């Protein structure tokens, strides 16, 4: 069986993640794709560096998947996160959830990314013109109040 939860040093392929959850019982697939944004609160990012505790990260992603398959019966999920240096607009994360009906595909996908940001041991380092810094959740917000209470 193919892995449904993995850390990758190579660019992520969206279709490859979606293919893991396509099946006859599903009518809906929601996909969340996180890309490297150039500007955050007006400050320009040159590139990002992601690091993971890969074995634990894959285990934690699997746990999130199991939580989701319990909370939204009939759902199937795949999650992949990239590590290493990522340039602007490159894909850091792809999550795909298939469900029989569309409402739960949205809910489960949102749950997946929120949980991933909470509990999966992956870190990013911002590289700016004038410096660099490893970002923790508490630090992401220090430049001001993020829109809608969150920052991607």
């Amino acid at each position, binding site marked *: 069986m193919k892995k449904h939860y993995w850390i990758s040093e190579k660019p992520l392929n969206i279709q490859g993640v979606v293919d893991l959850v396509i099946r006859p019982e599903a009518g809906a697939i929601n996909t969340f794709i*996180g890309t490297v944004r150039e500007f955050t609160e007006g400050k320009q990012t040159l590139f990002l560096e*992601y*690091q*993971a*505790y890969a*074995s*634990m*990260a894959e*285990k934690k992603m699997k746990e999130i998947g199991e939580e989701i398959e319990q909370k939204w019966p009939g759902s199937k999920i795949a999650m992949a*996160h990239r590590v290493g240096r990522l340039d602007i607009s490159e894909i*850091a*994360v792809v999550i795909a959830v298939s469900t029989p009906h569309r409402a739960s595909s949205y809910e489960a996908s949102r749950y997946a*990314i929120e949980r*991933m*940001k*909470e*509990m*999966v*041991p*992956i*870190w*990013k*380092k911002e590289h700016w013109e004038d410096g660099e810094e*490893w*970002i*923790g*959740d*508490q*630090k*992401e917000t220090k430049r001001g109040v993020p829109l809608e209470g969150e920052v*991607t």
Partner: protein
Amino acid sequence: MNQVLFFAELREKTGVYKVDVELTGFSVNQVKEWVAKDYSMPKVQDAMVAINEEFALNETIIENGDVIAFIPPVSGG
């Protein structure tokens, strides 16, 4: 014998990815204190600790062979 792993800022500041060290019988909290002192890393107090890839409490006692990882606040996604 035990392994201790560092990530992100902690890895960069300590300059260490992995240490083999005997920590059997110590509590997670005692390990944190040791790292804070030996590596001059007060920030380890903010980090979570995972033992064998599961988050652990400060009171948990390290067993022989356990892999201890310092998990600074995560920022994936």
